[in-house]
């Protein structure tokens, strides 16, 4: 069905461009959204192109306002690091905001040798401090002094935060980047006449980034960890949960890295990681907004077309062995109890992943969802219950996860029992048709709402192009969802949601700490 909607369009300007576009195709099945109430024809607004260097570009044209959202997704994430360099992908993302040889540089020829000296000193400091108690403290102090002087000199040769300055000054909104297990994403929204600025910056940082201020940025990431993990018992529990649920697959490691590891992240490894994976043939661009696709492509070809591809090679990512037996983790803290339960399952595009999308909605989306009704309204034992399908990533087989917080004086035990009762119901009793229909309606409406902004649209197109290899996954998704039956749900619930395939992580309050509030006043 989908292939008949593929149409090749020759680029009108290819003769002017050294690396001409190969194809431009119209995307997305027109009758994908069967139900007329949800009808929205992405066909009309999305075009896809592949440059000769492998760079994949999706352009969605819409005209409400003169703005545009721009996404770059590199198909490389935390899973691609080595164990010893856990956190490298994320630190690299930070480093890519430090400018390039031509952005931020005042005198590159003088700066370059200084940065080389700084690199050598940082490696020497790391090499010494890594010895722990045996480290030569005097030597480390000397090296630090030298580093400080060199950094001061280097700072006089570049303008800090030029990438941010350029975007902000030109009206950029929400400029940011994030690293996930599966991919690394850079995005910004701009007035729609400023696309060339984006192309100038992004093409340059795909080739010529300069890792300035590496030493202090590594410390920033340690602060990031203290803020988002060490001061947050829920996040600490999550780390423990993932480390238990995955024995060998890199989904077990924290994206930020462990604190001791962040301290020694290696600038040379970051350079290698950058060169190996930040190549046009490993990259998706999505542009959504008030743009003319031909004009956008002319700019993209001009700036990105001559970047050579690296021929990103396949990496070995260890496969998670089948779990056979429950795993349990207890994390003790002076915080209130929390609970995470996860089950291994296949990722997209497996049909069972679609079935889990429906199960996810039935269990926890909306006030009439099963777990909300049972745990929060009927039994009144939880203050929060949520489920997620596809955690913590989607490139590899992942988890279906329950998150809950008990309501005092109720316990994690009670929640666990209630969740298992609800799972048993899914395993043994067919979900009524109206309930399945409700879940499908919700999935379709959520999809529509996610398209309501340029950013939402560009984000989704680039995400599924990177993860599923084809952004048509988005609209086909709803077609497949429509086919899910009560029998599918019973089968999938029995196959995956069983005790042997389960990891449970519980945050329990330390015995000698009292609840923070006095309930009897």
């Amino acid at each position: 069905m989908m292939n008949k909607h593929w149409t090749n369009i020759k680029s009108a300007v290819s003769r002017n461009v050294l690396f001409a576009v190969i194809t431009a195709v119209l995307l997305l099945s027109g009758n994908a959204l069967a139900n007329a109430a949800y009808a929205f024809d992405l066909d009309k607004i999305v075009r896809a192109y592949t440059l000769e260097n492998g760079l994949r570009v999706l352009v969605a044209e819409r005209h409400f306002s003169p703005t545009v959202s721009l996404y770059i997704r590199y198909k490389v994430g935390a899973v691609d690091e080595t164990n010893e360099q856990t956190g490298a992908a994320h630190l690299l993302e930070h480093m890519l905001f430090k400018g390039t040889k031509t952005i931020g540089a005042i005198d590159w020829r003088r700066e370059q040798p200084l940065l080389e000296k700084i690199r050598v000193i940082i490696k020497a400091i790391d090499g010494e401090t890594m010895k722990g108690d045996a480290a030569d403290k005097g030597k480390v102090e000397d090296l630090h002094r030298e580093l400080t002087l060199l950094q001061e000199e280097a700072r006089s040769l570049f303008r800090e935060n030029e990438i941010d300055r350029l975007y902000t000054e030109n009206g950029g909104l929400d400029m940011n980047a994030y690293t996930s297990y599966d991919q690394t994403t850079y995005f910004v929204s701009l007035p729609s006449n400023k696309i060339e600025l984006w192309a100038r910056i992004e093409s340059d940082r795909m080739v010529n980034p300069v890792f300035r201020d590496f030493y202090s940025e590594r410390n920033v990431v340690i602060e990031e960890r203290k803020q988002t993990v060490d001061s947050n018992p829920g996040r600490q529990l999550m780390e423990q949960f993932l480390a238990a649920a995955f024995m060998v697959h890199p989904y077990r490691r924290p994206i930020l890295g462990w604190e001791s590891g962040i301290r020694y992240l290696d600038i040379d490894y970051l350079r290698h990681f950058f060169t190996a994976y930040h190549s046009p043939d490993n990259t998706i661009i999505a542009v959504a907004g008030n743009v003319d696709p031909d004009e956008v492509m002319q700019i993209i070809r001009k700036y990105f077309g001559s970047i050579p591809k690296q021929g990103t090679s396949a990496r070995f990512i260890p496969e998670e062995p089948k779990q056979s037996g429950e795993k349990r983790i207890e994390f003790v803290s002076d915080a209130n109890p929390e609970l995470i339960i996860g089950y291994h399952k296949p990722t997209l595009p497996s049909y069972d992943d679609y079935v889990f999308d429906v199960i996810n909605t039935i269990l926890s989306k909306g006030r009439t969802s099963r777990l909300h009704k049972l745990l929060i309204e009927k039994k009144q034992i939880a203050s929060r219950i949520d489920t997620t399908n596809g955690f913590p990533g989607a490139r590899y087989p992942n988890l279906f996860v329950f998150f809950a917080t008990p309501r005092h004086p109720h316990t994690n035990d009670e929640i666990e029992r209630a969740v298992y009762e609800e799972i048993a119901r899914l395993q043994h009793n067919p979900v009524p048709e109206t309930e399945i229909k409700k879940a499908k309606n919700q999935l379709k409406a959520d999809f529509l709402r996610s398209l309501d902004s340029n950013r939402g649209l560009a984000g989704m197109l680039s995400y599924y192009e990177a993860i599923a290899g084809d952004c048509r996954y988005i609209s086909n998704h709803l077609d497949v969802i429509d086919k899910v039956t009560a029998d599918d749900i019973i089968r999938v619930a029995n196959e995956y949601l069983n005790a042997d395939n389960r990891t449970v992580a519980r945050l329990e309050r330390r015995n000698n700490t009292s609840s923070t509030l006095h309930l009897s006043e």
Partner: protein
Amino acid sequence: MKRSIPVFTMVIICFFTMMGCRPSVTIDPDTIAYRPLDFSPQQPERVELPNGIIIYILEDHELPLLNVTAVARTGSMYDPVGKEGLAELAGIVMRTGGTAAMTGDAIDAELDFMAGNVSVKIEKDTATISLSVLKGDSEPGMKIFSDILMHPAFEEKKLQEKKDLKIEMLRRIYDNPRNMAFREFSHIMYGDNPRGRLSTVSSVGAITRDDCVMFHNQFFFPRNIMISITGDTTTEDAIALINRHFAAWRLSGDIPRVPLPNVNLKGSVNFLFKDLPQSIIIMGLFAPGKYDPDHYAFEVLDFIVGSGGFRSRIFGTIRNRLGLAYSAGSFYSPRNEFGVFGAYAMTKAETTAQVLSVLRSILDDAKDVGVTDEELFWAKRSIINNFVFSFSSAEKISMQQLLLEYHDLPQDFLTSYRYRIDSLTTSDLLRVAQTYFTVDETTVFVLGNEEKFDMPLSTFGMVTEVRRDDAEVGNSNENP
């Protein structure tokens, strides 16, 4: 009944000939030539119903969705003493506790089946009630939405459920240092003013169904409601839809005035203990409100000092140069008559005093030396060029216009905005910095474990310890 809104055109950066550029990828990014951005944002239609409800409507037919948002003048600052938390809870139970026509459960079932959303959110000084439905569900969606606004039933069972959940949330507040810090900071800044009161286990426990009914009667009447409708509808259909559901509503009332906070605080240093590896530091000051001519200069000052991203002074110094924080910056929340400014950073316990000193010196520097021409140019261009995003969706445009009227701001507030920003000078910024960045009026708040700090907090002034019990029940009398 209709009022026309002046149409204006935005032309941003008027260079031309992008097409003529030489294809050189090393072009200086500051010299890229952009085509002009001609833009005449669509204008919402304004309609006033005979009963006083004001409606803003803007069509947008791209997606088959209808979005409706009502705002009402009410909020937690009107909560009676001893019933703190009433507005927030009543808002939630308006949504969940049924209406004269339907039980709460029936409403949940109908909304979930049509994949529609209704939410009620009541903050310090505004209630926001929203509806999002597929176009085909406009009628049943609006029926539920209007009944929730006009005839909520506040079922006892649902009220009790929400009270229990709110109490659980209070129990857990100390598990989230950031929320805990900003809650205490706000409490200290506003002092005895009603805006500073905090809900507690006992105040939430004391709230009854009658309180909710009285709250609703006091604040929900046509002249206190404004509604924005956007999406896949026509203006005529939208007016008819609102008329069918709201025209018969005939009530009136008065909104009480809440005294303004004391904006001339004596400076103070406040400390709340929690054994954490990282401290949260906030320095707060009162700032101009939206009615104040200094509002524009202060907005630009705040941008340069800490809210303008990587290039702003706080971020650039504390994060970028010193590597002492991941989150650092400033915020400026202007209300109508006054505003609140805060400079903040989160840093490891061992560098708490160092970072506090840097924050203070950044504010002092803005006051003593001022900002540079380069900084001002950057801030102005950033704010002016970003302005187009205020008009990036029908909902934003419609709400923007609605809120101007809601806040009694002049009609030309938006049209003159860019001009006012553009005409500011470095001496304007120096003047507002000198007026508002007064050291002896600064409220310093630090959360963390002082034993691990690099210097005692008393270095910065007499320290008032926010006692844990007081913080928990929110009845601290130690405010300045």
